[in-house]
């Protein structure tokens, strides 16, 4: 078991002929993901890597292949439309990798996707991976290994760092999800924690947050009130100066709003393990197995 994706996932790639789309579609195929279709308007009828059929529209692709999940690599000005197109075509899980989607676009996309009953992960995220079964997005497959640890994170490379350390310590993962750092994203920590709580394979959850906003505090409340499984948390940005943004859209700190100290305290109050350094995760997870 796992969350959101598994060996049954049938994936279509929006923007499969683009630079990033084609590179990662190939990586996903190599990993063993069932990539059943690609979409690039105007290139319908062609094939990707002489095997995956390409369609002009998502509706066509879903109609012909029955894809249930979509991953988006289209440029920022078209990403909002791509997310809505996927949800409208009946895709259940929409994963948007694209970075730089205007936030006002996301206010519309968020409502639209919800109304269609689809789940959106991202935008501006590395996607997700269920080791040994399916990879949707850009998380490097070779740093992961199957196992009982659920991983959810707001950042990309920091997630890789911690997954890599878990794998080296012999701690495999059920599913790793990067939810992205934008102000408005489709799936939050709580959605993932809830799914991990219900997933029989997951025994411990690792959660990597950042300064800014209050998602981590809300997640801590959820852990305290609704979770039986142990959760270990980490907050990046303890040394960030007040009032400055740190690249990630989510990473901003100002006064007491969303400081690292505030978030770490919320973790402690919820009975979570707190990793001071990335390297601390492995020991904390082992203690809780």
């Amino acid at each position, binding site marked *: 078991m796992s969350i959101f994706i598994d060996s049954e996932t049938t994936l279509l790639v929006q923007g499969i002929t683009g630079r*990033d789309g084609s590179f990662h579609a190939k990586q996903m195929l190599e990993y063993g993901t069932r990539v059943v279709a690609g979409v690039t308007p105007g290139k319908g009828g062609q094939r990707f890597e002489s095997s995956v059929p390409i369609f002009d529209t998502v509706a066509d692709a879903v109609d012909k292949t029955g894809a249930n999940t979509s991953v988006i690599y289209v440029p*920022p*000005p078209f990403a909002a439309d791509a997310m809505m197109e996927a949800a409208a075509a009946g895709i259940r899980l929409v994963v948007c990798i694209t*970075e*730089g*989607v*205007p*936030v*006002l676009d996301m*206010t*519309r996309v968020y*409502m639209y996707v919800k109304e269609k009953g689809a789940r959106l992960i991202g935008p501006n995220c590395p996607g997700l991976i269920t080791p040994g079964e399916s990879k949707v997005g*850009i998380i*490097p497959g070779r740093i992961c290994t199957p196992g009982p640890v659920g991983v959810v*994170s*707001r*950042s*990309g*490379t*920091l*997630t*890789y*760092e911690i997954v*890599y350390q878990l794998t080296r310590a012999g701690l495999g993962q059920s599913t790793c999800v990067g939810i992205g*750092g*934008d*102000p*408005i994203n489709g799936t939050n920590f709580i959605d993932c924690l809830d799914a991990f709580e219900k997933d029989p394979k997951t025994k411990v959850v690792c959660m990597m947050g*950042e*300064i*800014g*906003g*209050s*998602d981590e505090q*809300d997640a801590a409340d959820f852990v305290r009130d609704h979770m039986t499984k142990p959760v270990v948390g*980490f907050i*990046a*940005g*303890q*040394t*960030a100066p007040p*009032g*400055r*943004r*740190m*690249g*990630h*859209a*989510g*990473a*901003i700190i*100002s*006064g*007491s*709003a969303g400081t*690292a100290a505030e978030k770490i305290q919320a973790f402690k109050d919820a009975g979570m393990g707190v990793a*001071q*350094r*990335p*390297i601390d995760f492995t020991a904390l997870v082992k203690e809780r197995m």
Partner: protein
Amino acid sequence: MLRNLAVGRLPPPASASLSSLNNGAFVNTHEYQAKEIFRKAGIPIPPGEVASTPEEAERIARRFGGTVVIKAQVHAGGRGKAGGVKLAKTPDEAREFASTILGMRIKDLPVLKVLVTPAADIATEAYAGIIVDRASKRAVFMVSPAGGIDIEDVAASTPDKIMKLPVDPRYGVQPFEAMRMGFFLYKDAKQARAAAKILMQLYQAFQSSGASLAEINPLVTTPAGEVVALDAKMVVDDNELVRRTEIEELRDESAEAPSEVDARKANLTFIKLDGNVGCIVNGAGLAMATMDLVKYYGGEPANFLDIGGSSNPEKVVSALRIITADPNVKAILFNIFGGITRTDDVANGIVTATRQNPLRVPIVIRLTGTNEEIAVKILEENGFTAMTDMDEAVQKAVQLATGGKAA
């Protein structure tokens, strides 16, 4: 902190600055620029002109006649408190005050322009703003009859004086919603109507500019009963600039730190700090975690620098140029986890950059991931050592920067 934001149950922001709650990279507009955008949307704005010399300010004041206000145009709050806003009764005074203000630095930013505007008689001061709120995932109006002061202070002391209204992105703000806010601001029906109209126009300006914040503080009434926007502020999401080149043109680079402008041009995210360990990392989360670890081991990061995802050698060259320009930097730390980023690209960048400009300070390179073997070979052939463990690399960099004094 706009936490748990939902209709009918809207706690005010605690101590966060409303403008800094906006997330993401952005373009800050000056007051005079925001006023121009608001004016085009139909919002009543008093006349005003921009001067960059005392003489210009004097000429503008003479043309307006009577008392004028000289206002520093700078991306910092608290201009008034810092002495950046002055009332000038005569054109001579206007020149004199403009001369003082134009030489000032407010929150370390140089004042290069002043706005000269006729002094207005004020009966009441209110606040009106729109912000993108991450909790409710919508644009949210905030209005308050207590204006002219920081809205954060109002939120802290008298939260019942703030009304918040999330806007449904499918329909935009509706006239009845604007009227509700108008009547929250003013008892007088005529003024409430005028305010409602301004709020609709503000929403239009907000949407058409791709803003993440649009603010009028204060929104004033004159003794004659007119409702007028006396100050204006707008912040635009960087992600909008591809399709809104007119906003990109508003960016005032002279109002930003030169190293940060340099970094933006090289497509790097850079923030200068006061420490001595220069950090070059891929990914914002890992970059922050690296800085935290530097601090954990007793060092101080000199900067935040994210070289981003698909980095090429030129980016690394720019990053090293920016970092080494800081005389405080005593050691340089690379922390690269190659996913999309190819570590051999980074290695090539390091070799190229150090050939052009030999380093004066020690460098610690940690890289792992995509094409790691090639990267290590490139580095070793050029006399560098590569490390694979983040924790060890950070400890070593701190040790080098502090001369072994830190733990």
